[in-house]
C-alpha cells in the first residue's frame, strides 16, 4: 500500500469509528432520556382517606390542574355520597330516613337512580345482589367496623329475613316505598357509584388526568399509567397473605372489583362467618371464596362482584359477558373459573 493511501485509510478509519462510537453513546443517552421522560416525568400525587368503612387511595397526575385540587374535589364527592347513602347514620342520610319511614317518600333524582340501579342488578342476578338486607347486616354486626360481631340465633335470622328482600322495595319515578319493614343498605353499590363520580370529576377538571382510585381493593381507572401504559393489577390470593396474588390483569380504563371472604369476618368454633350474606339463607354465602369482576364502571363491577360471590360459578355469572362485564370466580374448593373474554385482560 502506498503511503498516501495508507494515510487516507487511517483517517477514514478514525472518522468512521468515532462516528459509530458517538452514535452508540447518543442512542444510549436517548433511550435513558426517553425512559425517564415517558415514565418518570409524570408526577403522581397520592392521598389516603377513610371513606365507606375502608381505606380509599386516590392517585392522580395532571398537567392542567394541581393534582391536590383534583383530589380534594374527588374526596369531597365520595364523602358526600357516603354521608347521603349511609343506612345506619342519621343526619344527612336519605337512606336512613327511608329506612325509618313507613310511608312512601319522594327522593331526589340521584337517590332514585341508585335504588333503581340496585334493583336492576337484583333482578338480573335472581336476587343474589340484594340492596334490602339492612336488618340482616345490622343483626350480624357488619353495619360498621366498630360494631361487635356476633353469631345470631337461627330464629333471629328468620325474623330478619322476613324484613328483607328487594321485592319489598317499590320505586315509582322518584317515589320510594319500603314494605314489610325492610331496610336498604346500598353498601354493595354506593361505594362503586361514589368512586365513579369521583373519577368523573377528575376527568371534568382535566380530561387528560391519569391515575386511579383504590377503594378497599375496588379500583376505577382515571387514565393509563404515565398516559400510555396499562395499570398492572394483582388479584389477591384468597387463601394467601396480603401481598400474594393469583393472577394479574392490565387496565388502561374501566374498573375492577373483588368480593372475598378473607377480610371482614369473625370465627366461632373454627367456622368463618364473613360479611357477604346470602339473601336466601341469611347466613354468609359459601359457594365462592373470591369473585372478581371487570366492567366499564365500578358501580357495575361492585354490584356484580357481590352477586358472583353469592352465586358461585353459575350461568348467570357466565351471562355477565352480555352486559359488558367479565368475571373470575374461585369456588369453595379452590377451583378457578373465568368468563370467556376475561383472559383478554390478562395480556399486557
Amino acid at each position, binding site marked *: 500500500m502506498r503511503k498516501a493511501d495508507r494515510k487516507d485509510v487511517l483517517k477514514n478509519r478514525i472518522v468512521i469509528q468515532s462516528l459509530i*462510537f458517538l452514535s452508540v453513546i447518543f442512542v*444510549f443517552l436517548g*433511550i435513558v432520556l426517553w425512559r425517564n421522560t415517558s415514565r418518570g416525568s409524570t408526577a403522581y400525587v397520592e392521598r389516603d382517606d377513610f371513606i365507606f*368503612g375502608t*381505606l380509599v387511595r386516590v392517585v392522580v397526575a395532571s398537567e392542567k390542574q394541581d393534582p391536590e385540587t383534583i383530589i380534594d374535589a374527588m374526596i369531597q364527592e365520595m364523602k358526600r355520597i357516603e354521608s347521603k347513602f349511609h343506612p345506619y347514620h342519621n343526619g344527612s342520610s336519605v337512606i336512613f330516613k327511608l329506612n325509618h319511614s313507613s310511608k312512601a317518600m319522594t327522593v331526589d333524582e340521584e337517590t332514585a337512580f341508585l335504588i333503581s340501579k340496585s334493583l336492576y342488578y337484583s333482578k338480573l342476578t335472581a336476587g343474589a345482589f340484594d340492596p334490602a338486607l339492612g336488618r340482616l347486616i345490622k343483626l350480624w354486626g357488619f353495619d360498621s367496623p366498630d360494631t361487635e360481631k356476633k353469631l345470631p340465633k337461627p330464629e333471629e335470622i328468620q325474623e330478619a329475613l322476613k324484613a328483607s328482600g328487594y321485592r319489598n322495595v317499590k320505586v315509582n319515578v322518584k317515589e320510594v316505598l319500603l314494605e314489610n319493614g325492610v331496610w336498604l343498605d346500598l353498601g354493595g353499590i354506593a361505594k362503586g357509584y361514589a368512586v365513579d363520580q369521583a373519577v368523573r370529576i377528575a376527568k371534568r377538571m382535566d380530561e387528560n388526568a391519569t391515575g386511579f382510585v383504590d377503594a378497599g381493593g*375496588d379500583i376505577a381507572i382515571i387514565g393509563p399509567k404515565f398516559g400510555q401504559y396499562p395499570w*398492572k393489577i*394483582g388479584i*389477591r390470593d384468597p387463601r394467601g397473605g396480603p401481598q400474594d396474588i393469583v393472577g394479574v390483569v392490565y387496565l388502561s380504563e374501566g374498573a375492577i*372489583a373483588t368480593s372475598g371472604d378473607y377480610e371482614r369476618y369473625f370465627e366461632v368454633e373454627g367456622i368463618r362467618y364473613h360479611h357477604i350474606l346470602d339473601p336466601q339463607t341469611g347466613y354468609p354465602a359459601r359457594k365462592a371464596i373470591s369473585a372478581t369482576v371487570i366492567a366499564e364502571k365500578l358501580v357495575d363491577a361492585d354490584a356484580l362482584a357481590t352477586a358472583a360471590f353469592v352465586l358461585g360459578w353459575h350461568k348467570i355469572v357466565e351471562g355477565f359477558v352480555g352486559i359488558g362485564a367479565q368475571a373470575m370466580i374461585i369456588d369453595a374448593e379452590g377451583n378457578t373459573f373465568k368468563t370467556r373474554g376475561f383472559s383478554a385482560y390478562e395480556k399486557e
Partner: protein
Amino acid sequence: MPMKKNELTLFNRLDVLFLSIPLVVAFISLSLPKVADNSYVRVYINGRLVYEQPLEKDSVWRIESGGKYMSTLVVDGEKRRVRLVDSDCPLKICERTGWVGSGGIIVCVPNRIVVKVEGKEKSKEIDIVTW
C-alpha cells in the same frame, strides 16, 4: 485474496472489542431491574405520620393516640417485614393481615391506622391489588 498482516482495514479485532464495550454496558444497565432498597416503615393515624424507621432495624413500637393504646407494631429487620399485633379493634383485620414487606400496607379501619412499607420497589412489581 488473503489479507496481508500489516494491511490497514476499517476495523480490526481490537476496534470491534473497543466498540462493543459501550454497547454491552448500555444493554446491561437498561435491562437490570431496579433493586429494592432503603425501605421505610411509616405509621399514619388519621392521615398524619406519627412514626417512621428503616425497615432493616428490628423494633417493637406501641401505637397510641391521645393516651389510648391501639396496637403494637413489630418490625422484623432481618426478614424485612412488619406486622401489627395485640390490636384492640373488634375484627382484628389488621392483625390477620400478617407480615407485609416492601410495598405492603396494613390498615386498621376502626383505629384509622395505616402502616406502609415504602421504598424503591422492583420495577416489575404490580401497581395495585384488588381484594
